[in-house]
């Protein structure tokens, strides 16, 4: 969505003033949707968690639900595992996706087309199907265990129902978006500049470090902030593949709301999650702003 917003915003600056109303109209719909579906509920949640009505019907400023969250070992453990999962996923995504994107950018022929199709495949697999496939393959006595057993090797220590379960699932799920964004960033690296660097004797690592990396650092930031936002608030994969405790904030919020029947607690967790997502979002906004300043 943000990609479209960005494009829509850029229309009036590039074209004649006569087209300005159309540009504004195009922006109006997404802006309205964002205000309606994101900003308003967020403000609502914040105000309902800090301005609370007590048993006598008096409403007053009250931060006790936040005090509870940040003093409760259990909630903090859940926050910690969410941050840990997000960080590990971000690092793994970069390590896995950057080589794929580089390969796709700098090679020609049929094979890269197949690789690209394969890299984008996860986009079309619903995460619930992914989760059950994961259990069949990497789960206990799953396909990997059967294959290992067939060649006389011991079973693996399965990541199912451990914190690594959601990590593996989330990384796989986020590969397409990351690869696509990195690939579009790599599009701005001119072949001439690489050839020029090669001509003066730069090796592959120097070309990557001094020519490619500076050009795509923005895309890396964008790709990471996008996937990090998704991972931080993910629900299905941590719910199906992760341990009962500590749990990520997504399942924790859902459980607090529905199973513990504590809407204020769930909203508090949501506001804490907003806080972290705003931090990640700032990276994205900053890099977009820096890009447009150029």
């Amino acid at each position, binding site marked *: *969505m943000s*990609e*479209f917003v960005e494009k829509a915003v850029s229309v009036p600056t590039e074209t004649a003033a006569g087209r300005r109303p159309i540009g504004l109209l195009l922006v109006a719909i997404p802006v309205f949707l964002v205000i309606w579906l994101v900003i308003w509920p967020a403000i609502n949640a914040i105000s309902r968690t800090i301005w609370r009505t007590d048993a006598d019907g008096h409403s007053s400023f009250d931060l006790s639900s936040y005090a509870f969250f940040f003093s409760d070992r*259990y909630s903090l*453990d859940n926050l910690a595992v969410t941050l840990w999962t997000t960080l590990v996923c971000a690092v793994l995504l970069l390590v896995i996706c950057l080589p794929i994107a580089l390969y796709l950018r700098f090679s020609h022929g049929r094979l890269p087309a197949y690789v690209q199709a394969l890299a984008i495949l996860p*986009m079309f697999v619903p995460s619930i199907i992914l989760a059950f496939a994961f*259990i069949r393959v990497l*789960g*206990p*006595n*799953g396909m990997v265990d059967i294959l290992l057993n067939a060649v006389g090797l011991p079973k693996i220590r*399965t990541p199912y*129902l*451990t914190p690594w379960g959601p990590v593996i699932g989330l990384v796989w799920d986020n590969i397409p978006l990351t690869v*696509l964004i990195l*690939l*579009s960033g790599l*599009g701005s690296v001119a072949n001439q500049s690489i050839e020029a660097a090669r001509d003066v004797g730069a090796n592959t690592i120097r070309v990557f470090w001094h020519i490619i990396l500076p050009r795509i650092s923005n895309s890396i930031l964008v790709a990471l902030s996008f996937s990090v936002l998704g991972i931080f608030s993910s629900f299905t994969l941590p*719910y*199906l593949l992760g*341990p*009962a*405790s*500590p*749990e990520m904030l997504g399942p924790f919020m859902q*459980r607090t*709301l*529905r*199973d*513990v*029947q*504590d809407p204020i607690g769930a909203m508090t967790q949501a506001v804490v999650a907003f806080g972290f997502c705003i931090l990640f979002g700032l990276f994205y906004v900053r890099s977009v702003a820096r890009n447009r300043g150029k």
Partner: protein
Amino acid sequence: MKRRTFMMSAAGAAAGLALAPRMSFAAKGQIDWYTSSDTNILDFWTNIVKPGFEAANPGLKLNLVDAGDGAGIIAIGERAIAAKQTNADPQADYFESADALLPAGAIKAGVYTNIKAAGLSNYSKVNPLAIESEYSLPYRGSQVLLAYDTTKLKPADAPKTWDALVTWIKANPGQFVYNRPDKGGSGGNFVRRAIHQANGLDPKAFKVDNYTQEFGDEALGKAWKLLADIAPHLYDKGAYSSGNTQSLQLLSQGVVTMIPVWSDQVLQAIEQGVLPAETGLVQLQDLALCGGFTRSVVIENGANHEASLKLADFMLSEEMQSAILTELGGFPGVSWDHVSADLRKKFADIIPQSIPTFPGGKWEAAINDGWYRHVAPNVDRKS
């Protein structure tokens, strides 16, 4: 670059279509039906009840919708209350599984129908033990049992008391798993059985309205000790599956030897070959694991109220009650006298003398919160 742009816009357009709000209005003669039960129940309604009912009542149709879980049903109930206040269409006629007391105030608002007073021709057949409220209709029952792999555990050695079960779990580390208590009734009722065990095996000690912070902390605290004690001996040194189906999956993949299961789910799994025919079933004899009846609710202000009452009556007919036994593996909501004699003989072994139950309400929230805080994390699984 062009291809990429195209792909991005195509993906965006597809996402937009999927996210666009869908408007719907209740259609005349189409009963909007919601369930919070597992897929096997939805399958039963899709394959058995819907064709039977629609054939018996030309012009009426069933629109079967999965509401997800109990909270989903409550949300739709709240919608019906709001619709009643504004005289709007609640777009709901029938809840397959609901608690007449939830959402609070639904009965007072006149949203739930008084089934007893509704004049159903079959109402007198309902098992009196199962009736909890005049506003809900118990139409099927189910019970949690222990299912085990007979190739690893001989039926003669299967534990028949709680103490024997704990001894077996400790002697066979990693061979038992139960699901998180809020994610499915099999694990939930196993946890409730532990609460009964810790509190003198007296199901009557817990009532829907006797929860207090002190009583809850004391009664549940003792149960958390029991459960934390067996935790290191469970599958993967204290892992808990995330639902009834996931536990069955672990049993069927031969990962564990024993799990708590819903009677209807396990009988169906055996029937479909998901579990082998030699899967053993055992019930604890000192006090059975909890079970209960599933109760349906008819929405008073639904657009198809008359048709919904017909459906409720239809569910109590001998045809449907027999199908619950034979097709679903559940047990009937009517008294056993109203089930055909051959079926009564065939299922003599699972006819329960009594089914212990555990109240919901505040107990449920306390159990869900307490288990996650005191049982789930207390294990070092790094080793």
